[in-house]
C-alpha cells in the first residue's frame, strides 16, 4: 500500500464518524428540530458499544448497542422538547452535560481494557488492486454504512412521500398539522434516527477508530458534526463533501508537521475551523439555495391545539 492510499484511508477513518453523526442531525433538523446534544449521544454510543463488545466479545453486538444507546439518549431529548415543548437549545446542551457524565460513570469498569476492533473487510483480488483496492474494497464495515447512509438519507428526504412530509413539517409545522400530519410522531422518529446515528458514530470511535474506552473520547466531534450540517446547507451530499474536507485538512496538517514545515502547530490545528468558515461564506453567497434548504421552523417548539 503506497503513501497516497494510506493517507486517503486515514482521512476516511477520520471523516466517517463526523459524516454519520452529521447525517443523523441533518434529518433531525430537516424536521425542524435542533438537537445540540450530538456530543452527548455520541459519547453514550461509544461507551455502550465498547461495554457490549467487551462483555460479549462480539464487536457487532457492540455496534448494535451503540446505536441503541444513542437512540435511547435522544429519547430523553425528544420527550422534553417535543412532548413538553422545552427549549431545544438549552435541552441539547443539558443532554451533552448529562451524556458526558453518565458515560463516564458507565464506563468506569471498562477503562484500560483492551479493545475489540471491528475488522476491515477484505475481498481477495479486489482489495489488492492498486489505489482503488484498499479504498473501495478494504475498509471497515462502518465506512460502507456511512456511504449507504448518505444515499439512503438523500433518497428518503427527496424521493419518498415520508421524506417530503418530514421536510414540510420542518418548513411549517402549523400548516402540516392543519393538513392532519402527526407532527410530533414524525419528529420523534427523526430525533431518534439522529440519536441512533450519533450512537453509531460513537461506536465507530470506540470499536474502529481507536478501539478502547476513555472518558470524553468524542473530544468535540459531536460539535463538528453539528457544524457540518449547517456547512452543508442541509444537503446530504454536501455533508459527505464537508466531512471529507474536514478530515483532509485535519490529517493534512499532521503530515505538514511531520514533513517539518516551520509553521506554528496552533495555526495548523486551527486550519480545519478556518477552512470551514471560509467555505461556508463562499457557499452562502448563493443566497437562494441556502434559504430554500434551511428548515424554517428550526428550533421552534410545536404545541398542538387541543
Amino acid at each position, binding site marked *: 500500500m503506497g503513501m497516497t492510499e494510506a493517507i486517503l484511508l486515514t482521512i476516511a477513518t477520520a471523516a466517517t464518524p463526523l459524516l454519520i453523526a452529521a447525517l443523523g442531525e441533518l434529518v433531525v433538523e430537516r424536521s425542524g428540530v435542533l438537537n445540540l446534544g450530538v456530543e452527548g449521544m455520541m459519547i453514550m454510543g461509544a461507551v455502550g458499544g465498547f461495554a457490549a463488545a467487551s462483555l460479549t466479545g462480539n464487536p457487532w453486538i457492540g455496534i448494535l448497542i451503540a446505536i441503541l444507546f444513542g437512540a435511547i439518549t435522544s429519547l*430523553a431529548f425528544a420527550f*422534553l422538547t417535543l412532548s*413538553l*415543548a*422545552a*427549549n431545544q*437549545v*438549552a*435541552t441539547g*446542551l*443539558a*443532554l451533552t*452535560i*448529562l*451524556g*458526558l*457524565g*453518565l458515560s*463516564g*460513570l458507565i464506563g*468506569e469498569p471498562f477503562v484500560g481494557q483492551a479493545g475489540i476492533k471491528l475488522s476491515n473487510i477484505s475481498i481477495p483480488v479486489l482489495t489488492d488492486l492498486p489505489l482503488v483496492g484498499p479504498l473501495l474494497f478494504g475498509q471497515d464495515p462502518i465506512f460502507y454504512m456511512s456511504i449507504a447512509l448518505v444515499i439512503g438519507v438523500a433518497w428518503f428526504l427527496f424521493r419518498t412521500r415520508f421524506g417530503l412530509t418530514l421536510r414540510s413539517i420542518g418548513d411549517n409545522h*402549523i400548516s402540516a398539522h392543519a393538513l392532519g400530519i402527526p407532527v410530533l410522531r414524525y419528529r420523534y422518529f427523526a430525533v431518534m434516527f439522529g440519536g441512533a446515528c450519533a450512537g453509531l458514530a460513537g461506536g465507530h470511535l470506540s470499536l474502529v477508530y481507536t478501539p478502547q474506552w476513555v*472518558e470524553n473520547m468524542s473530544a468535540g466531534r459531536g*460539535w463538528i458534526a*453539528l*457544524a457540518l450540517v*449547517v*456547512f452543508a446547507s442541509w444537503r446530504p451530499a454536501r455533508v459527505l463533501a464537508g466531512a471529507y474536507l474536514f478530515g483532509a485538512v485535519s490529517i493534512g496538517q499532521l503530515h505538514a508537521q511531520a514533513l517539518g514545515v516551520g509553521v*506554528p502547530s*496552533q*495555526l495548523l*490545528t*486551527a486550519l480545519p*475551523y*478556518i477552512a*470551514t*468558515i471560509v467555505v*461556508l*461564506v463562499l457557499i*452562502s*453567497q448563493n*443566497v437562494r439555495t*441556502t*434559504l430554500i434548504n434551511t428548515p424554517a421552523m428550526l*428550533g421552534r*417548539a410545536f*404545541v398542538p391545539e387541543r
Partner: protein
Amino acid sequence: MTYLSPIIGLALALIAGAIMFSFLGKPPLGALYAYFIEPVSEMWSVHELLIKAAPLILMGAGLCVCYQSNNWNIGAEGQMIMGGMAGSILPVLFPQIAGPFVLPAMLIMGVIGGMAYAGIPALLKTKFKTNEILTSLMLVYIAQLILDWTVRGPWRNPHGLNFPETRQFDAFARLPEMIPADGRANFGFVIAVVVALLIWVLMAKTMKGFQVKVIGASPRAAKFAGFDAKNMVFFAFLLAGATAGLAGIVEVAGASGQLRTTISPGYGFTAIIVAFLGRLNPIGAIVAGLVLALTFLGGEAAQISLGVSDKVARVFQGLILFFVLACDTLILYRIRFVASKIIPKGAA
C-alpha cells in the same frame, strides 16, 4: 407560575438526585446537603460562589438580548477569551505603565476585544448571510488556539522557566477584592449585577429593547415598523460580545492575575444555559448564574465529603437542568393561552 415552575423543577431534581445517591450507596440527605448547603455555609465559600457566578451572569445577560432577537450566538466562550487577551495587552506588554487608570483601560480594552470578535459572525451574517451558529462556534476553537499560541510564544513570562503563562499582573492591574478578610471575591460580581440590571432596563424600558423583542418575535412586523434587521444583528452581537469580553478581563484581572493558556473552563457555553434558565431575562440570568455556580461548587464539595466521583456531579447537574427545563411546560400552557388570543388567524 413563571417563578414557581423552576422551583418545582429543582424539587423534582432533588428527589431524583436523592434516589441516584442512595443507589450509589451514599446518604441521600448528606449528598444534597453537600451540594446545596455546604457551599454557602461558610463565608469564604460564598465568595467563591460569587467569583464563579460573575462571568456566567455577565455573559448570560448579554446572550438574552442575542436570543430574544433571534441571533444564535453560541460563541461567547471565544468572545470571552478575546476580551481577556485584549484587556491583558497593557499589563503584559507594557508593565512599566502604572497608575490608577490602568485597570479601567484594561476593562475597556476587554470590552472592545470581545465586541470586535463578536463582530465577525455579525458581519458574516449581514454581508454574506452566513449562519452565525456555525461561525461563532468555529471562532471559539480559533480563539482558544490564538490564546494558546500567544501565551506559549510572544507573551510568555521571560522569568517563568518557559512555562506557558504571562507575568503576574501588578496590584494596580488587578481587580480589587471586596472584603479581603472574608474571601477572594472581587468587584467582578458587582460589575456583573450592575451590567445585568442595565441590560434589563434596556430591554424593559427603552425603544431599543422593544425593537429587539419585535424583531425576535416577528421579523415581518418589524419590517413594517421600519426596524433595521441588519442593525439589530450588529447590536445584539456587539452587546453580547461586550459582556463576554468584560467577563474575560474580569476573570483574568480578578481571580487569575495573569494570562494562562486557558481563561475559562467553558463559562461561555454554560452561559447559554444560564440565559435560557433565566427565561432570556437579564434578572433571571442573575438567579440562574448563581444557581449554576452553586452546582459547580456543590459538585466539588460532594467529592470531598462523600467521595462521589466527578461524573456523578456532572450527571446530577444534567438532571437538574433537565427537570427545570421540563417544568417549563407548566408555564408554556399559560403563555399559549394568552398568545392564542393576541395572534390573529393565519399570522404564523
